[in-house]
């Protein structure tokens, strides 16, 4: 590599908030006091929190400096498998910040909130169209929350049929939230082993599916980046024993406009708006995980639902069979606005997005398969999975490759997931990455593979460029220091 791209901006060592500041400083413009002080009983009065006092300059510089140590999608590529780190359009931010949306109280009478209600109603319709399902709730605040909604719906549906189901089938490629969400609803996860070619076989489903099993939670395309080709047969088997099919829609970016989930036997699924629908990740959230269901499951959706009538839109709790409520209000509305704006901006281009995402991933797969071991040498969807098998021969692990990538200005791909592949390195470029940037990633990984052979200490020592190097995670876990 001729030039190191660099990893962070100017480096400052910035103290913690309470290490800065001085008593008497103020960073806030307090409104004028135009009423007198009213005494409060000593029983209730506290001393107030031990917060630092900072000037506005202190605050702005502090967080500006902190931001400069971060990497974001706006800094460079995040080839994180199953995260769909696509570009976050700025005009969508503008819409979420419109006064009418940002300043709205969630409990306004319906007639005073028609704009928001109409937007949500239309978004429900758009997501129903994209997934091929019939009814949607925008309430879940994240994918895992959507999964919880789905599992609650399955539980309610089975109970309404007088059927006691205590188990659920979960493929070995599943994301950790899948067994975790189902356990919250009292479903014991039963693992299903994927076949030799990386996808589920109808036989393994037949074996596991019985009348005590609520159904299956399947990710499609799966976390190996492969389309679950047997899904129709799998759905048939599950349905034949009275079970239900739930799809974790985290990988929806691969199949928009190509597959209708409703048509292939899916009864319920969630979407991740912060993945497929371009809303920003925010350093961990907020996301949004709407749940989409087939008609027969509509009565169980969380409340309130948006109802369209003669006079306009309103929120209704009048649904007897609802599973209840998952969020205090209506979900992460601000995130919904961004996703809605994205869909309106893209229109049919959503299909092109999926096609280009899949093209990018296959291109990477073809060009790197001689450099890194590719456990499944078949056409992939929007992501591909490699392993460190070749590099293990020279005592280099996936972790070392990931850390070295940072020295070259990239965020690493997803590592050590899915668990079914030892030393997994999962790459998802998304459609918003250009060929040049992808070529740069490929060339960088090739260089790193060479370094692994010729100068492995560079990988073991990596990263050396960022603000800090490898952290002592053992000490952090043994003697946690979680507040200052």
């Amino acid at each position, binding site marked *: 590599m001729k030039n190191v791209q660099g990893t962070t901006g100017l480096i400052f060592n910035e103290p913690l908030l309470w290490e800065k500041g001085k008593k008497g400083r103020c960073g806030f413009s307090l409104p004028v006091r135009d009423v007198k002080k009213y005494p409060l009983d000593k029983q209730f009065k506290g001393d107030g929190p031990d917060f630092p006092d900072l000037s506005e300059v202190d605050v702005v510089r502090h967080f500006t400096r902190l931001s400069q140590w971060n990497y974001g999608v706006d800094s460079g590529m995040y080839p994180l498998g199953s995260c769909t780190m696509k570009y976050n359009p700025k005009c969508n931010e503008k819409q979420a910040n419109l006064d009418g949306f940002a300043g709205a109280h969630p409990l306004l009478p319906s007639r005073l909130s028609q704009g928001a209600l109409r937007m949500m109603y239309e978004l429900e319709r758009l997501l129903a169209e994209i997934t091929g399902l019939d009814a949607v709730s925008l309430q879940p605040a994240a994918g895992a929350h959507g999964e919880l909604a789905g599992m609650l719906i399955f539980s309610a549906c089975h109970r309404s049929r007088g059927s006691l189901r205590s188990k659920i089938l979960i493929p070995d490629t599943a994301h950790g939230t899948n067994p975790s969400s189902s356990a919250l609803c009292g479903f014991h996860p039963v693992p299903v082993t994927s076949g030799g070619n990386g996808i589920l076989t109808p036989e393994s489903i037949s074996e596991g599916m019985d009348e005590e099993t609520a159904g299956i939670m399947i990710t499609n395309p799966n976390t190996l980046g492969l389309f679950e080709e047997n899904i129709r047969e799998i759905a048939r088997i599950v349905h034949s024993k009275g079970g239900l099919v739930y799809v974790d829609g985290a990988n929806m970016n691969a199949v928009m406009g190509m597959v209708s989930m409703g048509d292939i036997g899916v009864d319920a699924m969630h979407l991740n708006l912060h993945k497929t629908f371009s809303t920003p990740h925010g350093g961990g959230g907020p996301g949004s995980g709407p749940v989409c269901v087939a008609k027969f499951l509509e009565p169980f959706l969380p409340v309130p639902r948006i109802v369209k009538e003669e006079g306009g839109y309103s929120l209704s709790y009048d649904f007897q069979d609802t599973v209840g409520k998952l969020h205090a209000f209506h979900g992460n509305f601000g995130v919904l606005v961004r996703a809605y704006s994205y869909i309106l901006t893209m229109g049919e281009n959503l299909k092109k997005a999926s096609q280009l995402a899949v093209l990018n991933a296959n291109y990477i797969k073809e060009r790197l398969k001689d450099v890194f071991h590719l456990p499944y040498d078949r056409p992939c969807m929007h992501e591909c999975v490699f392993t460190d098998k070749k590099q293990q021969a020279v005592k280099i692990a996936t972790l070392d490759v990931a850390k070295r990538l940072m020295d070259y200005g990239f965020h690493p791909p997803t590592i*050590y997931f899915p668990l079914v592949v030892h030393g997994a390195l999962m790459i998802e470029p998304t459609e918003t990455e250009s060929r040049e940037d992808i070529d740069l990633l490929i060339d960088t990984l090739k260089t790193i593979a060479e370094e692994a052979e010729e100068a492995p200490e560079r990988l073991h020592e990596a990263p050396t460029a960022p603000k800090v190097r490898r952290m002592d995670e*053992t000490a952090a*876990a*043994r003697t946690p220091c979680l507040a200052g």
Partner: protein
Amino acid sequence: MKEITELNFPEDIRYSKDHEWGKSIDGKVRMGISDYAQDQLGEIVFVELPEVGDIFQKGEECGTLESVKAVSELYMPVGGAVISVNSQLEDSPDLVNSEPYGSGWIIDVAPSDASEMDELMDRDRYMEELKGIEP
């Protein structure tokens, strides 16, 4: 992670297929995890111990060992009541790594069925088992 030949397996104790060891000491059974297990787990940051007086069957889960990136369940090599736990592990969980057979012992059990010890493997048998495990 080390090669099997680099690991230590004392002769005078017995081993379970879940990589625990058991040692009879004056009628009670002391248990811990093998050198292979601690090497696989990595640096241990926390040990969740059962309460004294808890009763478990052979093979039942009685606690957990946490490293930074993984959690491993502890299974009873023999069934019985827990008569004492190694409270040193609260402040020094790393003892399980450094002295898995000595000061890194985990619990003492009053065995409900003495013959269960015989069902465990001796050192040679255990090492054979380990060689059969895929790297």
